Every structure is written in C-alpha cells, then in structure tokens.
C-alpha cells in the first residue's frame, strides 16, 4: 500500500459522514482531525468510542460537526471540553448520550453482522429514556429478565492513529484492540501512522496480535506524532501542557479561533504534517 497525503485523506471524507473516533487514551488521529478542519469539513456525525476527547472538541469548535453520539466528552485532567459545552448550549450540535458498553456493544453487533445485541444495566436511566432507538424486552429464554436491545452501529469511516503500517497495508495498534473493532464495524478505515515499514505484520507471530488486517484499511497517511497531544502507546506520552493551554484558550470563541490559527492553520502546524 502506498501512503496518501494527509490532505488527500481529509479530502476523501464527505461532509455529513458518520465517523467513529477513539478518545485520547486510545490512539486518536489528531493529525487527521486538524486536516479535516483545514479542509473545512461540515456536518460530520461523530461517534465517540466509547467517549470523546480533544479531537472531537477541536472539530466541534471549528464548526465541522452536526451531531455526536458518545458516552462523555472530556479533556481528562484538563476538565470539561469547552467547545463542546459552548456548541451544545448554543444549539449548534445535537448529542445522543450513550454509556460506554452500549457503544462497544453496538459496534460489536456490526462487527458480527447481526442487527442488534442485548446489554444489561441501562434500565431506569434517562439515557435509555432518551433513546427511542433502543428497546427493552423480556428475555425470550423464560427467565423473566428485562433486558435492552441495541441496534448495530455501522460508521461510514473509522479514523485512528496507528504506530506503523507495513508495505502490505496492515496497521499495528498494539493492545488497543478497540481500534480493530471500529475498523471491523466501519465501511472503511482511514489510518494515520508514525511510519511505514517493509514487510508484513501478519507473518510475524509477535506483531500479528497487535495488527489490523489490510482488508479493513482503505488508506494510510504518514503523520509523525499524529496522536499528539494524546499519547501513543510506548512511543510518546501525553502533552499535558498542550491540553491545559488549549483548555484555557478555548474557553471563548475568540480564544479558540486564535488557538486554531496557530496550531491548525499556522505555517509550523502544516509543515510538521
């Protein structure tokens, strides 16, 4: 597989696409999120798998997002996600609240190619009360248990950042197997990577368990340090200062615009990618 450019990858994302994104602790592609802002993406529908973080907040701040389904939006130790909070208050985005295992279960149903799967918990929560697309049944196995059925969730596009891709088009995410679930459940996967390596991960017994088969990968783009400020496995850590600086700047619309000009559109930001 020949890597494409980050800009070409962003250009392949149509407005209105349903995009699955992992949060800050599980390999988000912040590089592609920034490229989508530069391209002027609009009307995106984001799925936080199972929650949403920094990449989601900047996409919302830049006006790229129409709605999100997620179990939380947070900047972790830096607190609430400021652009998400503002957009919700101002009625610029819709949110469908979920709970973490519900997102996983809906994706696993898609992964298995079945129309729905059951999940315990949920009953008595207002999350369920606000999800007309979820349904409570009595177990057909005669136990009398009430249980919730969740419809399969099929994202158009999975977006995440892997450590590396090989020349056969496989990507390697280590133990972050939720990226594999997203890739399996989505129609196509766009993956940014730190580097391209010769060979085939599937032929290496030690690399194979952390690999995602090229079957699921539509395109790879090289974006060094493409998860930052999020961490990437044992490659690099969280940039706490960067997130704290963002959280302060993005409290206001003007502060976010200034932050964006420097960190998304700035000459340095683009040159680095």
């Amino acid at each position, binding site marked *: 597989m020949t890597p494409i450019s980050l800009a070409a990858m962003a250009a392949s994302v149509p407005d209105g696409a349903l995009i699955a994104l992992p949060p800050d*602790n*599980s390999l988000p592609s912040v590089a592609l999120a920034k490229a989508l802002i530069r391209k002027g993406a609009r009307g995106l529908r984001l799925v936080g*798998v*199972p*929650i949403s973080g920094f990449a989601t907040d900047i996409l919302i701040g830049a006006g790229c997002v129409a709605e999100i389904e*997620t*179990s*939380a*939006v*947070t900047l*972790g*130790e*830096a*607190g*609430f*996600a400021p652009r*998400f*909070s503002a957009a*919700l*208050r101002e009625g610029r985005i819709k*949110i469908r*609240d*979920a*709970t*973490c*295992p*519900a997102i*996983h*279960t809906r994706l*696993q149903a898609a992964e298995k190619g079945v129309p729905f799967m059951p*999940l*315990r*918990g*949920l*009953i*008595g*929560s*207002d*999350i*369920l009360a*606000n999800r007309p697309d979820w349904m409570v049944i*009595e177990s057909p196995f005669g136990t*009398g*248990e*009430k*249980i919730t059925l969740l419809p399969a969730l099929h994202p158009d596009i999975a977006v995440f950042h892997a450590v590396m891709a090989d020349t056969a088009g496989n990507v390697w995410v280590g*133990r*972050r*197997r*939720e*990226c*594999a*679930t997203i890739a399996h459940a989505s129609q196509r996967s766009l993956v940014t990577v730190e580097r391209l390596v010769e060979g085939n991960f599937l032929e290496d017994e030690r690399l194979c368990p952390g690999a995602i088969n090229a079957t699921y990968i539509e395109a790879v783009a090289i974006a060094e340090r493409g998860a930052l400020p999020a*961490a990437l*496995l*044992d490659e690099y*850590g*969280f940039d*706490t200062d960067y997130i*704290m600086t963002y959280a302060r700047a993005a409290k206001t619309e003007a502060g976010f615009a200034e932050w964006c000009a420097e960190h998304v559109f700035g000459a340095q930001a683009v040159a680095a990618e």
Partner: protein
Amino acid sequence: MSAADGLRAQRPGASTKELNRPAPDSYRVEELLAVSIARLIRARPTRHIAVGAASPIPAAACWLCVKQGDPLRLSLLHKRSGNPFTEGSRELFDLTGQGRIDLFFLGGGEIDGQANLNLIGTGEWPGMGVRFPGSFGSAFMYFMAGRTILFREEHSPRVLVKQVAHISAPGISEPGVYRPGHAQALVTGRCIFHFHPEQGRFSLASVHAGETVESVRAMTGFYFEVEGEVPETPAPTPDELALLRGTVCDEMVETYPEFCSRVWGRAQAA
C-alpha cells in the same frame, strides 16, 4: 468536579486525645479521603478492583491497599504502560458483566438520597443548564460491578441534591432487572455515608475533622439517617501518609501527573 474543588482540612480546636495522630494541617483532604476509601475497600472481601477515568483519589486508595500488602488485582483503565486490557476498551465491561469486578468507583455532578447519579447535566435534557461531561460507563457498571464506592469531593447542596435532574445510573432497580451491585458508600470532602439498598437511603457513618452532624445536614440536599453517636473519620496515620507520598505517588504519576503535582508537589516527567 473541578480541580479547584479541593477543600483543605480546616481545624480549629482539634482534639488532643490521640497524640500519635498527625495534626489536621499536616495532611491534605485528598489524603484523608484516600485512606477513608482504603478502609471501605477492606471492609468487604475484595479481589479485583477496576478504576476508571478521572479518579485519582480512588486510585490512590487502591494503591495504598496494594502497598500495605492486600492481595488485590487492580485494573486501571487509563494506565498507559502495562494497561491490563488486551481486548480493547470493551474488555472492562465484558469482565464486569461476567462478575469478575468486585469494586468500581463512580462520582456524579449530582447525587441524590436514593444514590441516583447524574453525570449528564442540569436543566432540560441533555443538560441545557450546566452540561457535565456525560455518563461514561455508569449506566452499566453501577449495576454490574460487585459494589460501587461513590466519591465526590465537593459536598454542597448543589451536588448532594434531593432529586437529580437526570439519571445517568439509578441507585436501585425494579424487580425483573438483573442488578447484583449497588453503592456501598459515598465519600465526600465532609463525611462518609453508607448506602442501604433495601431502604434506598444513606446513613451518616462518620464526619471528617471540623464537621458535625448538623454542619453536614446543612450542606446536604437529601435526607439521611443518623444512628447514635457519629464518630469522626480517622485521620491518616504517619505510615499511610508516608506510603501515599512515596510509593503510591510513584505508581500514579504517569496516569495522573496533574494530581501528583498539585497534591504531592511531584514534578512531571519531561
């Protein structure tokens, strides 16, 4: 929920009965809460604890138990190196669904007297007043973990309310719903409540130094039971403080750098 919630232990007229006890200004409220949670962990048989997002004080309590020699398995969802989950982030919920997690921790933007949790927000759905981050795994974990210790440092009438605006996860469930687990206790910056799922009510178990039943009542929006004399929450011992500031902090600094720097002055790794 904000990092600015930190209440310092404040202390006029401290008791001099226990000479071996550190003066209240010699420990931080975060340390008192961590040792209090550690006692609640030991109060019931516990083999496997999971700790979720944004829970540095519960994580410190778990590490304290481990460093004191308790044979616990600790699964930290946000641990970057050596993360325990090899099947993706769904594995925590799969394990819990199987009954393999004995204890979990949850908080809430609002918590009411029936132990209902609101992590959604205030005002009209979906939190058009103040929006909180969201429910995370609460709507599943609260039911399915063997038990849950609720933790919220801010203890005020806006947090501990008569009735939550929205229910992320209910404190009790109707018949016919599979529900093995409930709240064990609620730990706040002022006191410890125990929860009684049969009655759907909290009782006051202890008050932290400087608080009284009356002062807790005044700052709590929900009704709670008081049975007999309510003791003072025991202060951290010098040994506990040494562990927290030493090896517990060592374990936590990678995952909670901001917390370790704020509470223990531990410099962040470059």
